[in-house]
């Protein structure tokens, strides 16, 4: 069967169903939704989710309760909507977001490989390709809903995502130059002695901002701007379709946080944790990976609490005139200072 041995098959099942597959990404979404609500509530001097779940007044199961509520709701399709596209797009969005997780290595395998569902030496490129497909989904959904707000939101989303893909790709060039590989695992290994955030701080900031814009987080959530276009392209979605859209958003957050961890924070590298390392060195690596992911997630989430939203022209302007030049400057600096950093990464 697939030419795999029994052990490999079991391993594949664990990877797909538990970590880093379905269970992990769903759990990540649920925890992040809860954390976002609770954290922002505390920043607002509110309490946040309160009643649902174990532990007195913590509201831990609030996202699950919300999800169950959404699943029960009626699915309403606007009468003038393009039925096929309208129903397809949320599914496609969730599917594509989940797909990227398959290419991200999360730790070193005890047997010598990497803990990744589908290993390919071109994983960075594959993830970029999947990211690029997002605007099409948004435009498709926004157009299919046949609502003016949806259309405006979808077009804004297309503008924004296309504008911010370029600085992201440009700063990835700097990383690929350093690591001399499109393989995410090789990029992590290149950072064994020094993290890339120290070598390429400008690239890190550019990617962080660019990724926040790709994720439509607060200072850049212009396509979803409630005050202007109600909810942007997913305005008309109800019930389980809306749940799919939300889930795809948080899957994207998971992918982004993992990606930044791998690219700049050295992935799973870190000192061995005594207890975890005794069980398996892989667990220690996973621990470090999740810790770094958490830090990135908190930074991305905090934008919602401390910044007002930008305007679309300001966003595009800063994308084209600030981030792209900075990304190019980073590449030039990387090339010019090659003689100093090459020994650092063992090249």
């Amino acid at each position, binding site marked *: 069967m697939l030419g795999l041995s029994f052990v490999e098959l079991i391993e594949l099942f664990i990877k797909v169903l538990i970590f880093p597959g379905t269970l992990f990404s769903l759990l990540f979404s649920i925890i992040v939704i809860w954390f976002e609500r609770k954290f922002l509530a505390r*920043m607002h*001097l509110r309490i946040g989710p309160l009643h649902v779940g174990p532990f007195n007044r913590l509201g831990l199961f609030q996202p699950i309760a919300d999800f169950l509520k959404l699943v029960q709701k009626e699915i309403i399709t606007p009468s003038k909507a393009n039925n096929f596209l309208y129903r397809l797009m949320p599914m496609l969005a969730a599917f594509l977001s989940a797909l990227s997780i398959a290419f991200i290595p999360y730790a070193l395998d005890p047997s010598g490989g990497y803990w990744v569902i589908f290993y390919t030496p071109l994983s960075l490129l594959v993830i970029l390709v999947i990211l690029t497909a997002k605007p099409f989904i948004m435009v498709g959904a926004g157009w299919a809903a046949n609502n003016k707000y949806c259309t405006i939101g979808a077009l804004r989303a297309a503008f924004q995502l296309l504008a911010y893909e370029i600085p992201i790709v440009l700063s990835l060039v700097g990383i690929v130059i350093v690591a001399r590989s499109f393989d995410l695992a090789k990029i992590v290994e290149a950072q064994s002695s020094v993290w890339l955030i120290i070598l390429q701080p400008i690239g890190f900031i550019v990617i962080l901002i660019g990724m926040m814009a790709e994720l439509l987080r607060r200072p850049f959530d212009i396509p979803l701007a409630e005050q202007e276009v109600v909810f942007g392209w997913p305005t008309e979605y109800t019930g389980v379709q809306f749940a799919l859209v939300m889930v795809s958003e948080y899957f994207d957050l998971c992918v982004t946080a993992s990606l930044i961890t791998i690219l700049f924070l050295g992935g799973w590298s870190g000192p061995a944790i005594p207890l975890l390392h005794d069980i398996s060195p892989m667990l220690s690596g996973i621990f470090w990976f999740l810790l770094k992911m958490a830090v990135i997630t908190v930074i991305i989430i905090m934008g919602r609490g401390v910044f007002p939203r930008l305007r679309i022209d300001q966003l595009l302007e800063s994308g084209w005139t600030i981030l792209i030049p900075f990304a190019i400057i980073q590449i030039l600096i990387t090339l010019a200072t090659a003689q100093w950093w090459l020994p650092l990464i063992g090249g």
Partner: protein
Amino acid sequence: MVLSILRPFFLGLYHVFKRTFTVKHPYETLKPPERHRGRLMLNMDRCIGCSSCVKICPNKALNLVEFNGRKLPQYNAGRCCFCVLCVDICPVLALSMTHEVEYSVYKKEDHIYPPDRFSQPPEPVKGKIVTVKTLDKKFGVKHG
């Protein structure tokens, strides 16, 4: 410029560790001040049925009805706007404001208080009664 972007970050992070402002309502209730205006209440023994409250009410929330051979005001809580004009004008101080605020009903008719129901004092509030204890810049407002 960098400072003006980073400062809100730290300020926001600092507020995460402050006390929350919210009063957890079903478990805690804010202490109503002395003058707090809730539902109107009638003192049936004092009322002389002079109908001056009925005349002054801008919303016609009060009207006189026959009750046990006396003329007494009947109260429609759905119309009351809590302006206390009736309390002010009452010559025998028969009307007073209680602190009851939770009197929502499912049917419109339940808002009408005949004189006997009108003269009943409200039930005491359940839950802990809190008020603003301290105003602290560092840790926020404390209810207790």
